[in-house]
C-alpha cells in the first residue's frame, strides 16, 4: 500500500497494541477482557499484513501458533489451580495475595480472573492472528 498507509500503520501499531493491552488488563474493571483485547491485538496483526504484506510475517507464523499453545495451556493450568476444591474454583479471589485483593474495583483483585484474561487474550490474539496470516499466506507465489 502507499507510503501514507504504511506510515500511519507504523504509528498506529504501538497505540493499538497498548490499547489492546489496556483492554485486557482492565478487563475485570471496564468493558473488555480477554476476547475483546485479543481481538484488538489480532486486528493489529491483520493491519500489519495488509500494510506490509504477509510475506514479511511468514517467519512469525510458528511463534504465533506457539503463543497460542502457551495461552491455551496457561488457561487450563489456571483452571487446574482450583482443583483442590473443584476445577475452575477461583482459589485466589479475596485471598489477599497477589491478585487476591479484597476490594472490588482494584486492579489486583479478582483472583484468577485477570490471569485468565491474559491467557485468553494472548490465545485469541495468536489464534485469530494466525488464522488471518494463514489465509493471507496460502497460495503465495503461483497464485496470480
Amino acid at each position, binding site marked *: 500500500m502507499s507510503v501514507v498507509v504504511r506510515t500511519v500503520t507504523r504509528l498506529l501499531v504501538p497505540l493499538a497494541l497498548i490499547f489492546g493491552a489496556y483492554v485486557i488488563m482492565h478487563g475485570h474493571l471496564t468493558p473488555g477482557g480477554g476476547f*475483546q483485547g485479543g481481538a484488538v491485538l489480532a486486528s493489529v496483526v*491483520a493491519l500489519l*499484513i495488509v500494510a506490509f504484506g504477509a510475506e514479511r510475517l511468514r517467519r512469525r507464523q510458528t511463534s504465533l501458533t506457539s503463543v497460542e499453545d502457551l495461552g491455551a495451556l496457561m488457561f487450563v493450568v489456571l483452571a487446574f489451580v482450583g482443583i483442590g476444591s473443584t476445577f475452575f474454583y477461583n482459589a485466589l479471589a479475596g485471598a489477599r495475595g497477589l491478585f487476591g485483593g479484597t476490594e472490588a474495583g482494584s486492579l489486583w483483585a479478582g483472583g484468577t480472573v485477570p490471569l485468565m484474561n491474559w491467557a485468553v487474550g494472548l490465545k485469541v490474539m495468536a489464534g485469530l492472528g494466525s488464522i*488471518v496470516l494463514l489465509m493471507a499466506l496460502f497460495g503465495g507465489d503461483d497464485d496470480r
Partner: protein
Amino acid sequence: MTALTVLQVANLVLIVAGAVLTVWLRDLLASVVALAAMSLLLALQFYLLQAPDVAIAEAGIGAALTTAIFVLALRKTRRKEEEE
C-alpha cells in the same frame, strides 16, 4: 429513555436493510462490504442494549477480522457470483 427506544427501532431497521443488501448484491465484494456495515450496525445495537463487552468483541471480530478473512478468501478465489 424514549430517545433510546427510537434509536433502537431505527437501528434495527437499518440492520435489516444491511442484511437485505448483503443478500441482494451480486458482487461478492459489495456483499462483504454490506456485511461489514451490518456488523457495524449490529455492534451499535449491542451498545444500545447496554452490552459494551459484546460490542467491543463484535467490533474487533465482526468489523475487522471477518471482513479481512472474507476479502482474503475473495482474493484467493473470484469476485463475481456466477449466474445460474
